[in-house]
Each structure stands twice: as structure tokens, then as C-alpha cells.
């Protein structure tokens, strides 16, 4: 089998980084970042969550070591999600209703 065997050291390192990011996101939630910049809290939370997801996808799910074909399929799944989110949210955002 010509698959790349990822060493446990890498897994442990990624795990450690994921733990650090978890602590960071909990801490960031306790700080009023919205005072510095509008919606900064949610932006920070989503950026950290995305970093964690990318690490899991690349290393735990072996996407880093996969063929270009596999990487394309991985990307496609999230691209379709992006289509759904961006089109629906821009629809809501462009509705000029009083309550929203």
C-alpha cells in the first residue's frame, strides 16, 4: 500500500494545538471584544472553529496526504455549503424590513 502513514507524534501535536485553540475560544468568549469592533466576538469564535476544523480535516482525516482528486471532493462539499449560506443570507440581508 503506497499510502502515507502519519506518525502518532503528528497526531499528538495536532491534538495539543486543538486543545490550545479550545481554551482560547472559551477565554475569548469571556472578553467583550464587541467593544473593539462590531461583531468581533463571533468573528473570532468562527475563525478559531474553522482553524480547528481545518486541522482535523488535514491531519486526522488525512486530507493533507491525499491525492488532488480527493482534495477536490473535500473542497467541493464545503463549497456547496458556502453557496447555500451566502445566497440565503444575502437574500435575508437585502430584505428591507423594519424588524430586522
Amino acid at each position, binding site marked *: *500500500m*503506497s*499510502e502515507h*502513514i*502519519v*506518525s*502518532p507524534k503528528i*497526531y*499528538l501535536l495536532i*491534538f495539543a494545538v*486543538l*486543545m490550545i485553540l*479550545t481554551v482560547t*475560544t*472559551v477565554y*475569548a*468568549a*469571556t*472578553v*467583550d471584544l464587541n467593544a473593539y469592533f462590531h461583531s468581533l*466576538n*463571533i468573528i473570532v*469564535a*468562527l475563525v*478559531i*472553529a474553522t482553524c*480547528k*476544523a481545518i486541522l*482535523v*480535516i488535514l*491531519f*486526522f*482525516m*488525512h486530507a493533507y496526504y*491525499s*491525492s488532488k*482528486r*480527493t482534495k477536490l*471532493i*473535500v473542497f*467541493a*462539499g*464545503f463549497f*456547496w*455549503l458556502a453557496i*447555500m*449560506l451566502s445566497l*440565503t*443570507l444575502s437574500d*435575508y440581508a437585502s430584505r428591507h424590513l423594519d*424588524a*430586522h
Partner: protein
Amino acid sequence: MHRTGELSGQFQTLEQQKESATLGMWIFLSTEILFFGGLFLTYTINRHTYPDVFSFSSRTIKLSWGAINTVVLIGSSLTMAMSVWSAQVGKKKLVTFFLIATLVLGSVFLGIKGIEYHDKFVEHHVPGLSFDMYYCTNNPGACSNVSPEDLAKEKVELDELTKKMGGETAVNANSQLFFSLYFGMTGLHALHMIIGAGLLLWLIQQSTKGRFTAQYNTPVENVGLYWHFVDIVWIYLFPLLYLIDRH
């Protein structure tokens, strides 16, 4: 009847055969991304519409349980990855060990989720006929799982929120939105965990028969992909449901 990793007729190389299994799993995961994505979209729209209610409702959920669950679940992803590695290097006993470890951690996660759901039930935060955000503050002593200091803080914030939203009915109606999403999203996630636990039980049983080797460990890898995906969903659920506004 069972696959053994030998080259099947329709494939040219073992590498191609292996990759097709991985691709198939990822395509399935794409459907899962959209499945959960719909709920995340609903959450986004509703939170944007009722930011104060969402913020308050989120704070009635115990942060510590969610944080512990995050650590437990990421840990289970580590043990799952380690079981794939064990198969790749031919350590058959370790494969079983790490699969069992993953199952144990997954079960701890589900157990904690059960505790959380029970808490919500006691506090009358389950959407439906008995839903009442004011139950705990109106019936002191009824919500024994909430500490008196937290309850006092809750009452102050709840009074402010009621003024802002223009009445108790509005607060109850809109916080039911949050909790519907909370139970819907974590419930769907927990269902996926239970399915994953079933898959792990199957893998554990097969691994004790020595079925997973360096030559053939595709089932372990693919269940791993599924398990990691469920972990990623939680990685997003945790900040969105538990960490809206903790300051």
C-alpha cells in the same frame, strides 16, 4: 463474503481501489455537511433576528459541560486516528484498544449530553407545553441544578430582557427558538454519535478477529472519516450554542 483488500476486477491498482473508497466516503460526508448546514443556516438567521434572547438563553446552559465534551470528543478523534495508525503498522491488538477507547470517550460524551438534557428538562427549557423561561426564577428551589448566585444573576438579566422584548410572551416565544435549535442541532449530532458508536462496535468485533492489517484497513479509515466529521460538527456547535456571550 468479507472484503480482504485484494484487487477487485474493476480497479487497475490497489491504490486506485483504496482511493475510491475514500472518495465515496467524502462524497457521503458532503451530503452530511449540507444536512447539518441547513440547521446552521437556520441558527444564523434566527440568532441575527433575536440576538439578546439567544445571548441570554445560551448563558443558561452550563459552559463547563460543553467544554469538557469538546475535550472528550477531540480526544476521541485522536484515539480514532491512532487506531487507523495501529492498523497501518500491523499492531492488531492496538487497533482494538484504540477503537474501544474511542467508543468509551464517545459514550462519555453522550452521557454528559444526557446530564445536560436532564438539566434543561428540570429548568423547563424544553420547547413545548411546559416551556417557561421564568420557571426557575418564579419557583425558587425548583431548579436545584442552578446555584443561587447564578439564579440571582439570571433574574436580573431576565427582567432586563423582558423589558427589552416587551413582555414575557415575547421572551418565551423567541427563547423557544433558541432551545428548539439547541435540541435539534445537538440531538441530530448525538444521533450521529450513536450511529458512530454502532459502527465502532462492529469495527471492534471485526478487529478482534484480526481483520484489519497494513494491507487492508479501509473500514477503520472510513469510520474514522465519519467520526472526525461528527467531531467537526461539534467544533462548530460548541461556540455557537455555548459561547455566544459569556462576558
